[in-house]
């Protein structure tokens, strides 16, 4: 982004419309363009809000963090630089360089990092914190020549690495990748010494853009994709299996097909982190099965679902896969080596990210792997990520949608379902906000929340949070529903209710209503409902109680619920 564009973005967002999104930019230098770029990148990520970037005191990063109240901000971005660790590592101090200072500088750096760690960990209990590690080159303060890493310099770098690793373990802290920053902003072009000496602002304009973008991306990350649909020939393996046979396709070094092995390895890793992987291939399924039966294959066929192998248009295969997964096309990536197949799928499913597998271009293949990692990467993995494929496969094997009431009753009565209701779980459980911010279909109103906003919902004693987990004889679904609201006299106001689409058709939603009535002893539930383009399943759930699907906020009385609730076969276990 150019500086002019960043300034214009902030100016255009200055209108009083939209809720404010206050962010603290904590840095020890004059924030100048970093403040502008951070604000602009955040603003572009949340166009409906007004980003307000506040800053701390010059030269006192640790003090800024220690004094910051979490009530005044919804996120904290930290741009750490060497002078924050010891002023002698900057250019505005003349405290001394050279052998006599080196050991003491290293000791001072270690002490400063300890103090910063404590302050950041404390802040991260309340608001998300993003950290950019020192990004400017170390000054020529050490006795070794610049091409040699001396002991003091390496000690400082080692302490910094320990500091970063400690922060990365904190649930509320994220650390910008120095490697990625290095790709986007070459080391030698980062420092603007003239601006540093004139104004105390050390970054070149492009570097401020890169750091601002990195911090903004950590604070407001894009939702990761949920599913990947892949071709097989010349993607998962080298060669066309229908022509050369299952023993002749390859994915190893000896056959100059290692990139296909790396692709298999990438897909296997994705399945391990809960990404859904399916195949859409024009092929003979018997021959394909023989390849997956080979002992040297790296991608387990059991981890792929569904396997759409036939001769129909791939857009049709993709449609069936989306139906089996029950996810929207905007959450899916399709990879094929054929531009024509990509175009055919893109024409039918424009929201899908269609990526070319560049089989004869090594650099482009590596770029593809990196893109895939970026699209699917998650900061933290939850237990539910392990269950996802098994529960979707079970749902496909035992489809419950559109079956008659008596058949569904028969199925549910023998399912051995256990619903675990955890009242007021730790607000910091990352799965809760993940469900709230990623669920589209069974969603009361589609509202998304920042971490800080979400936590503040529960400051009042009358508020409640309910986290629902589910398990039946087909396996656990894990934590699948979140309800939140507050008590109002003899009623309960519900302002958040989301449920994973994997949990549909089990009457879990009815079980949740039953729980709310019985646990709180209220006679009425009031729902802050708002229609969204995708929450029809939520509306459909309430049509029997109201006569029609709701269009605006509504309420359900206990009498209405008891009259229309279908029979429940859920064993409920409550954790208070």
């Amino acid at each position, binding site marked *: 982004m150019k500086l002019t564009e960043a300034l214009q973005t902030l*100016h255009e967002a200055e209108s009083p419309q939209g809720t404010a999104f206050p962010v603290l930019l904590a840095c020890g230098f004059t924030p100048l*363009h970093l403040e502008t770029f951070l604000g602009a990148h955040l603003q572009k990520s949340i166009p409906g809000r007004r980003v307000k970037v506040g800053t701390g005191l010059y030269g006192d990063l640790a003090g800024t963090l220690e004094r910051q109240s979490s009530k005044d901000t919804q996120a904290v971005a930290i741009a750490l630089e060497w002078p924050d660790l010891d002023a002698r590592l900057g250019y505005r101090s003349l405290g001394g360089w050279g052998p006599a200072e080196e050991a003491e500088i290293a000791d001072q750096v270690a002490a400063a990092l300890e103090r910063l760690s404590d302050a950041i960990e404390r802040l991260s209990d309340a608001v998300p914190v993003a950290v950019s590690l020192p990004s400017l080159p170390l000054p020529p303060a050490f006795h070794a020549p610049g091409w040699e890493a001396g002991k003091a310099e390496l000690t400082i770098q080692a302490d910094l690495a320990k500091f970063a690793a400690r922060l990365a373990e904190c649930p509320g802290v994220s650390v910008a990748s120095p490697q990625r920053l290095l790709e986007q902003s070459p080391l030698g072009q980062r420092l603007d010494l003239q601006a540093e000496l004139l*104004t105390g602002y050390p970054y070149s304009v492009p570097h401020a853009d890169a750091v601002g973008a990195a911090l903004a991306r950590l604070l407001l990350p894009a939702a990761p994709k949920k599913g990947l649909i892949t071709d097989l020939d010349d993607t998962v393996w080298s060669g066309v299996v229908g022509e050369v046979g299952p023993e002749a396709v390859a994915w190893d070094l000896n056959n100059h097909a290692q990139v296909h092995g790396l692709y298999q390895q990438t897909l296997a890793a994705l399945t391990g982190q809960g990404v859904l992987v399916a195949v859409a291939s024009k092929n003979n399924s018997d021959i394909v099965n023989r390849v997956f039966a080979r002992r040297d294959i790296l991608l387990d066929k059991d981890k792929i679902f569904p396997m759409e192998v036939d001769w129909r248009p791939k857009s049709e295969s993709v449609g069936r896969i989306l139906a089996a997964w029950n996810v929207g096309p905007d959450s899916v990536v399709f990879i094929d080596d054929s531009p024509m197949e990509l175009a055919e799928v893109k024409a039918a499913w424009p929201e899908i990210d269609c990526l070319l597998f560049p089989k004869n271009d090594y650099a482009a293949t590596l770029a593809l792997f990196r893109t895939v990692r970026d699209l699917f990467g998650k900061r933290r993995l939850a237990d539910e990520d392990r269950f996802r494929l098994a529960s979707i496969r079970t749902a496909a094997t035992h489809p419950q949608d559109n079956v008659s009431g008596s058949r569904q009753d028969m199925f549910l009565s023998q399912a051995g379902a256990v619903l675990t209701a955890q009242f007021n779980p730790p607000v910091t459980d990352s799965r809760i906000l993940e469900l709230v911010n990623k669920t589209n279909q069974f969603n009361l109103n589609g509202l998304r929340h920042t971490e800080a906003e979400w936590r503040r919902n529960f400051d009042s004693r009358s508020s409640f949070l309910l986290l629902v987990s589910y398990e039946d004889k087909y396996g656990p679904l894990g934590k699948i529903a979140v309800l939140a609201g507050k008590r109002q006299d003899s009623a309960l106001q519900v302002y958040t209710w989301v449920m994973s689409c994997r949990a549909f058709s089990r009457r879990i939603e009815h079980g949740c209503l039953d729980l709310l009535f019985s646990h709180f002893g209220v006679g009425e539930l009031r729902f802050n409902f708002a229609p969204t383009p995708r929450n029809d399943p939520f509306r459909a759930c309430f049509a029997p109680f109201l006569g029609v699907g709701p269009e605006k906020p509504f309420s359900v009385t206990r009498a209405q619920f008891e009259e229309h609730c279908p029979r429940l076969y859920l064993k409920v276990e409550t954790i208070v």
Partner: protein
Amino acid sequence: MSEVTVREKLTKCFRAVFPTLLDATIPGASAATVAAWDSLAAITLLHVIEEEFQTAVDFDRLAELNSFESLAEYLFSHVEE
């Protein structure tokens, strides 16, 4: 670059850095007449000018480049076609 082009592009830079200025007042703008024109705004303005004109501005002359007119003259004499 013609003087007209320099002035048009410079006006765009002023709009970005001082968005509350009316276009009609930009040619007469200076550090003395624009309250928001402080030292940090001056640095921002020069960086925006560098971006827009694809040229390096001599920051040591920051003190004298303190008006639309002085910047227009500087750019007209320093920016190549």
